[in-house]
């Protein structure tokens, strides 16, 4: 299905024009009016934003009901929308104005169909029943009576029964005029049958009195002509002597057909009224409403009623007057009550309105038919051979037919609200008043577009039923509103610090000052701490000292400086103590590092008195150490100074030639690498470690398991090593001050911990929760 973007009518796939409004389908894409994205022509809603692509049919058909019912020119759906105050016929004119311009019977007719106009779908199809088609209602059954509007029932009751009066239809001249009236009721796009596509022909309004048209069409035309049109073709006045019989037969047949048509119309009206309610809720119903998207030929017979009544009135006024039942004067129009003929009057003085025919019930005479204008859209219906007016203001006359002027037709007066409904009519627009937006995002802008529902909103954006928010939600919304309205300064509240928190805020600073004093005082007051320059004996440090003492003169000791400059303050001193011990034992040094900064740190030490080879940085971490265990020459080609390792004086080619391995590390990884990668390959080579105090707990298990022969931890370990290696050697003034500072700091920390715990437990015991 292809849904017309103009009127929403469903069309067959592959259609080039809309079968309802004739809108041309320009391509396979439809541009979304909301977001501008291209969508397939079959889409009802936009793929990108969900906006409805096919407009609601209720918009366009609102203007139709009164128009079709009167067989007057209708305004296509795609015309410019009416002003807001002219959405419905009832609102088009004020009551006073309508009474002035609209005949009584038309006003009554409007009043009758007015309530139904509330539903645009109903209004469109209410046009099918013709108020003057009274004879056709004889065959309506009781069911039809229940569904037919009241005004239609009245017309049915007032149906004239004199068959001889229908002879007036047989007048060829008046028949042509009726053709004009019938064609005037059809939109331009629907009348041009020869140009219409099959889909259009299917819904095109039939031309009941277009006799020349049937003459020019052959048998092929009969195949495509609707049944009701075929019947009209058969009724074409071929000879004066056959007219009476033809009309009588046609009347009998058409009674049944139109009665069925009226029933269908009423049913469709009711169905479409239901559809209209659901249209907004579910657009799928568009596809399910055949009456909405396809107009049956029977339902699209607009002008028959008028034709039947008007034609005899023009030819035989006295006989036509008999069509008006006298007993229904109260309900019928004034022109019907006067028993006078129906006059189609053309106003000579207003040529611009000559293409519209309006009933003038007040005027029963004169009977003259001044020339009238024929609109262009009506001229397209002119059959071949017809004599078209050479100038505006003259009605065209088919060949062989008398002109309307000859039969005394006059130009009719057309109300302004009907004039605006004429196809192609362009309403005079005054200067666009550009207002300035007062508020909102567009505040201050001129000429901003109105926020109107140009398209149906997406399903997700439709208004949801109002609901009462929960109390919590309402409270949150109220709080948000209050926060947004309050100035920012009011939201910044002074921070209230509890008294207890204020008091405890200075405790960290007090602890820091105490600790700093404990570190600083020993440098200026030596000997403040009794025995502060001595540390408890360390078995691990003593074991390393014993291992070094067991070295022989000339043994090679590999020392790996695996710490960074940040830990040099802590580790430099223990390393210096050990190097002094090694110097004293006459050992030679082989120095390397698994950290890039290690060789530089090693170069700062005094290596005098020992043969030393500074191998330099050993890359690869675990892989480098694993490779080092296999041989030195494969790992180091030159030493840190660029000298070839093969020419080194120590004559060491592998770690098997090393008597002791000592790693000085500030993190546990280098120690673990040495143990896991080297010690496992050379379990007989002793290995010791000098580590930072921070990693001593995690390195000690290697000493406990025997993988490390000794362990020195930080300054305390260095002092313990000194005490174990040279108990009689006097420490320097700086070293004593440093050791005393370390001891006093430890005492201070222990004191703070004890005091803190006392305060904590005291508060808990005495009921004051911290």
């Amino acid at each position: 299905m292809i849904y017309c973007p103009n009127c929403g009518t469903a069309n067959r796939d592959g259609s080039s024009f809309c079968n309802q409004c004739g809108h041309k389908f320009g391509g396979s894409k439809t541009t979304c009016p909301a977001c501008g994205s291209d969508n397939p022509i079959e889409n009802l809603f936009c793929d990108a934003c969900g906006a409805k692509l096919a407009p609601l049919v209720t918009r366009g058909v609102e203007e139709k009901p009164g128009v079709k019912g009167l067989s007057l020119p209708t305004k296509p759906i795609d015309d410019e929308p009416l002003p807001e105050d002219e959405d419905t016929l009832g609102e088009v004119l004020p009551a006073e104005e309508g009474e002035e311009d609209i005949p009584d019977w038309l006003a009554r007719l409007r009043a009758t169909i007015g309530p139904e106009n509330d539903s645009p779908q109903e209004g469109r199809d209410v046009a099918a029943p013709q108020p003057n088609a009274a004879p056709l209602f004889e065959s309506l059954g009781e069911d039809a009576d229940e569904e037919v509007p009241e005004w239609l029932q009245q017309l049915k009751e007032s149906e004239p029964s004199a068959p001889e009066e229908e002879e007036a239809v047989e007048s060829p001249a008046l028949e042509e005029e009726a053709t004009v009236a019938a064609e005037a009721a059809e939109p331009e796009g629907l009348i041009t049958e020869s140009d219409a596509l099959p889909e259009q022909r299917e819904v095109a309004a039939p031309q009941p009195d277009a006799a020349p048209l049937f003459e020019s069409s052959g048998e092929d035309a009969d195949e495509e002509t609707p049944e009701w049109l075929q019947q009209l073709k058969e009724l074409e006045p071929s000879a004066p002597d056959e007219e009476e019989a033809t009309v009588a037969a046609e009347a009998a047949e058409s009674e049944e057909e139109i009665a069925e048509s009226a029933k269908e119309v009423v049913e469709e009206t009711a169905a479409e009224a239901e559809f209209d309610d659901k249209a907004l809720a579910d657009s799928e119903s568009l596809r399910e409403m055949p009456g909405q998207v396809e107009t049956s030929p029977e339902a699209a017979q607009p002008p028959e009623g008028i034709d039947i009544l008007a034609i005899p009135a023009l030819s035989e006024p006295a006989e036509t007057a008999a069509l008006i039942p006298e007993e229904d004067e109260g309900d019928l129009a004034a022109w019907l009550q006067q028993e006078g003929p129906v006059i189609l009057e053309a106003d000579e003085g207003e040529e611009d309105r000559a293409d519209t025919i309006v009933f003038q019930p007040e005027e029963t005479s004169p009977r003259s038919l001044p020339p009238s204008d024929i609109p262009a859209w009506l001229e397209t219906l002119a059959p071949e051979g017809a004599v078209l007016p050479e100038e505006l203001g003259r009605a065209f006359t088919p060949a062989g037919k008398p002109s309307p002027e000859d039969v005394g037709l006059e130009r009719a007066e057309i109300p302004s609200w009907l004039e605006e409904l004429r196809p192609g009519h362009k309403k005079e627009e005054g200067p666009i008043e550009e207002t300035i937006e007062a508020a909102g995002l567009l505040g201050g802008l001129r000429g901003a577009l109105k926020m109107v529902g140009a398209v149906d909103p997406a399903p997700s954006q439709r208004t949801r039923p109002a609901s009462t928010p929960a109390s919590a939600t309402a409270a949150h919304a109220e709080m948000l509103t209050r926060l947004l309205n309050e100035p920012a300064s009011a939201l910044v509240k002074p921070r209230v610090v509890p008294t207890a928190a204020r008091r405890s805020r200075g405790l960290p600073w007090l602890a820091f000052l105490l600790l700093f004093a404990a570190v600083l005082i020993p440098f200026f007051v030596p000997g403040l701490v009794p025995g502060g320059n001595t540390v408890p004996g360390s078995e691990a440090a003593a074991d390393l000292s014993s291992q070094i003492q067991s070295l022989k003169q000339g043994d090679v000791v590999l020392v790996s400086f695996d710490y960074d400059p940040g830990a040099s303050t802590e580790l430099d001193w223990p390393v210096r103590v050990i190097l002094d011990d090694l110097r004293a034992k006459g050992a030679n040094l082989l120095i390397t590092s698994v950290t890039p900064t290690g060789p530089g740190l090693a170069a700062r030490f005094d290596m005098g008195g020992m043969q030393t080879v500074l191998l330099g940085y050993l890359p690869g971490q675990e892989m480098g150490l694993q490779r080092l265990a296999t041989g030195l020459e494969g790992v180091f080609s030159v030493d840190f100074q660029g000298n070839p390792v093969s020419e080194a004086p120590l004559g060491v080619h592998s770690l098997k030639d090393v008597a002791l391995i000592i790693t000085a590390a500030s993190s546990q990884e280098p120690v673990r690498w040495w143990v896991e990668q080297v010690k496992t390959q050379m379990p007989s080579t002793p290995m010791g470690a000098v580590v930072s105090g921070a990693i001593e707990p995690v390195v000690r298990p290697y000493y406990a398991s025997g993988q490390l022969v000794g362990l020195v931890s930080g300054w305390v370990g260095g002092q313990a090593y000194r005490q174990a290696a040279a108990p009689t050697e006097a420490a320097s003034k700086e070293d004593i001050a440093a050791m005393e500072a370390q001891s006093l700091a430890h005492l201070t920390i222990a004191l703070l911990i004890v005091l803190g715990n006392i305060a904590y437990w005291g508060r808990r015991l005495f009921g004051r929760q911290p």
Partner: protein
Amino acid sequence: MSELIGIWVSALLTVMVLSYLLGDNPLYRLAEHLFVGTAVGYAVLVAYYSLLRPKLVLPLLQAPLENWALAVPILLSLLLLARLNHKWHKVGIVPLAFLLGVGVALTIGGALFGSILPQTVSTIQSVNPADGGWGLAVSNLILVIGMLSSLSYFYFTADSGAGVGRIKSGFLRAWRGVGKWFIMITFGAIFASTVMARLSLLIGRLQFLIYELPKSLR
């Protein structure tokens, strides 16, 4: 003279770092950035002169035909640079896989035979006082209890059913409580060691400022 400048720059940087006690400030940031930048620059130079130059550049320049195999590590190194390009970053997986594969293999082998097995064996200690006295026996007992309870603390799938399962669950809960205390004591010891190490750093800096800096003025 250079030593004198070095001492003063060192002293100035020490004070700048200690200024962090008063809060974060530009002086501390400057000293921090200088330290990091100097360390990285120094490491790059050391890596070049200790590794790249003697083991890669010089051999290729002196005897390229004999050392053609060095093109393989060069190629792998260049592939590592592909990690910087989003389009070719998958190519850099090859040298990474090589490095990680070798590294993990060595780590697993070394950890198994260098840490796990020796440490496990070292916990098998005698708790018999006749072997080493009561002190050693108690020490070994504490070691065993601490090890088992600490391991059980990380056993999270205890049966909480009825009967035997409930008894086992209750016992395991208590046993895990013991292990938690051992873990807490261990962490406390590590923290205390760290504090001691940092105090050593502070003392070393004060020692430098108090003894070394005045010496430079004389």
